[in-house]
């Protein structure tokens, strides 16, 4: 008998049947004398067999000690307990099989453990933390939840002992991680980007019932608060405020979404390493992706190769390609805007991580921290919010930016399979409205305009909204030109807004919150 944390453990040995049940019961009672109210654990590591007489002993014991659990049960005894319904009445923990990973291929590594392939069909994730049973249960729960919510993933079917740690075993038939595919088949990079982003979008569009997963915002907020001690006061406060201002979001994020955590099994893409699953704004996910492909190896490009198996240039190509695919645009300004927001959280995490690991006591780490801090302070100066809208572009209202605005709108129209005639009409309307803002909103000063493209399904409508902070001006109030006049009577000009009104199905204007808001709508059928 041993006693720990108010739990009394009694070891059971050999066989318990009608011959010795009474004696065993007597012995247990003696050992538990004066321990009313304690939690009792029966350790069954050396128990080989139990008959119904033995089961009755356990039942009577359970009456007096409702928290009773049985641990390290071998599979023969487990089968008996399972058949007789005992596994549903009380906690019954199986004995752990011992597995060796010596000489096994390492196929993945995450924050909490390393994944090895132990044979053709199975992999084991070995946890760093020696006391990982809670982590393992947590990961199994989150994996189950993800699976139920429609995310293809592998769920562990067994817990094993690996050296002094625990491991969880998954079935993973002939699978290769995306990192391995990218390293060994570079021609598949674009395909990997597409599939990687398809899964990412699926994760981010998955709504999670309240309370099932931790809120990433809380975690990031704690990082930001930690940083207050290490940044100038104003910058520290701004960082905290930026995170606080991120609205609650109950959609799933993976939390450690890099290419070692995505597996291709036959033709199916599977997500693994589910222990970091959370809910939150996608920017939190992009921040951890930034660190995985850029941040961690920004100052030492060899790190990425060690971690992912592909080189720095490939990682940059992958990251920017994935970001463009995720945002649905090749627009460099847009990609940089979102990357910069991700970097704010990414650097915050890197600095905190390094400081907590004693980085300030080490010259090399201190240099890194200084570099990250400098970048972070620069970004904080120019950033007003961390969230982003993939379908919104903000730029200076300047005629030189016309082509960029049209290209940005065009990408979204192409994605919606807009017919060529409507595309051309929208193109013209966009030019007329944008040039109108360029000419009148801020003149002779300079200012920004925002263009937003939304495509609704059924009916397929495209709505393009222009916003500017210029002088309030409703261009729709102007009288339409008389298009029946002869050439020499017609004024040169005044046609732009009229064309926009004519080729679009609906054009509306309002002035709200200090902004001119002009909305163009067209039905694409």
């Amino acid at each position, binding site marked *: 008998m041993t006693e720990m944390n108010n739990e009394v453990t009694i070891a059971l040995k050999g066989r318990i049947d009608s011959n010795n049940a009474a004696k065993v019961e007597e012995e247990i009672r003696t050992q538990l004398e004066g321990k009313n109210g304690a939690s009792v654990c029966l350790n069954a590591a050396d128990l080989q067999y139990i008959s119904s007489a033995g089961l009755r002993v356990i039942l009577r014991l359970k009456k007096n000690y409702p928290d009773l659990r049985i641990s390290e049960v071998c599979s023969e005894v487990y089968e008996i307990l399972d058949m007789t319904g005992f596994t549903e009445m009380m906690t019954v923990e199986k004995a752990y099989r011992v597995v060796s990973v010596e000489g096994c291929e390492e196929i993945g590594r995450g924050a909490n453990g390393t994944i090895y392939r132990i044979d053709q069909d199975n992999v084991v994730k070995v946890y760093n933390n020696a006391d990982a049973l809670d982590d393992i249960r947590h990961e199994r729960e989150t994996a189950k939840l993800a699976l139920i919510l429609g995310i293809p993933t592998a769920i562990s079917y067994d817990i094993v002992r690996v050296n002094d740690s625990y491991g969880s075993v998954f079935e993973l038939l002939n699978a290769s991680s995306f990192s391995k595919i990218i390293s060994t088949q570079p021609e598949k990079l674009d395909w990997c980007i597409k599939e990687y982003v398809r899964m990412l979008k699926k994760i981010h569009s998955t709504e999670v019932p309240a309370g099932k997963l931790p809120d990433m915002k809380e975690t990031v907020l704690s990082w930001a608060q930690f940083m207050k001690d290490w940044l100038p006061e104003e910058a520290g406060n701004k960082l905290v405020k930026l995170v606080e201002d991120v609205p609650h979001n109950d959609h799933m994020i993976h939390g450690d979404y890099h290419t070692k955590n995505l597996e291709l099994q036959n033709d199916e893409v599977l997500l693994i390493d589910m222990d970091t699953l959370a809910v939150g704004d996608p920017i939190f996910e992009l921040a951890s992706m930034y660190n995985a492909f850029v941040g961690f190896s920004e100052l030492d490009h060899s790190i990425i190769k060690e971690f992912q198996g592909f080189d720095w240039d490939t990682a940059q190509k992958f990251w920017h390609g994935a970001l463009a695919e995720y945002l649905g645009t090749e627009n460099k300004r847009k990609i940089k805007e979102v990357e910069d927001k991700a970097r704010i959280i990414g650097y915050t995490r890197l600095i905190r991580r390094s400081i907590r690991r004693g980085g300030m006591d080490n010259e090399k780490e201190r240099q890194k921290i200084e570099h990250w801090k400098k970048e972070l302070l620069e970004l904080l100066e120019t950033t007003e919010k961390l969230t982003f809208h993939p379908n919104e572009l903000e730029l200076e209202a300047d*005629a*030189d930016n*016309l*082509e960029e605005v049209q290209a940005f709108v065009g990408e979204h129209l192409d994605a919606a399979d807009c017919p*060529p*005639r409507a595309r*051309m*009409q929208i*193109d*013209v309307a966009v*030019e*007329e409205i944008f*040039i109108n803002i360029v000419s009148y909103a801020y003149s002779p000063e300079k200012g920004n305009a925002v263009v937003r493209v939304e495509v609704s399904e059924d009916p397929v409508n495209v709505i393009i909204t222009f916003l500017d902070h210029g002088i309030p001006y409703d261009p729709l109030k102007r009288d339409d*030109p008389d*298009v*029946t*006049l*002869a*050439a*020499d009577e*017609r004024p*040169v*000009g005044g*046609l*732009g807004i*009229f*064309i926009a009104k*004519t*080729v679009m199905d609906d054009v509306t204007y309002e002035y709200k919150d200090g902004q001119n808001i002009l909305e163009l709508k067209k039905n694409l059928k």
Partner: protein
Amino acid sequence: MLNITKTMDGSKAVYNLEGRLDTITAPDLEKSLGDELGGVKELVLDMEKLEYISSAGLRVLLSTQKVMAKQGEMKLIHVNDVVMEIFEVTGFTDILTIE
């Protein structure tokens, strides 16, 4: 992008327009026409390869039409459907000679 190719034949000028006639490119056409129109009695704008036109392009066409009405004639040829639609909604089909 707008490519302008001109061919002069006595008092006849033919302009081939290729690409987009918009806010960015309309000033190029305006300048090109402004430099060359003196003495031209017949101006032909070949729009076979013109893919796009906005009000900025229409402005150049209208002001050129006004100049040419005084010294000869101007006509547009090979106008495609999308460009023609813009001409139609703005009444330009009635004030320009389009073949």
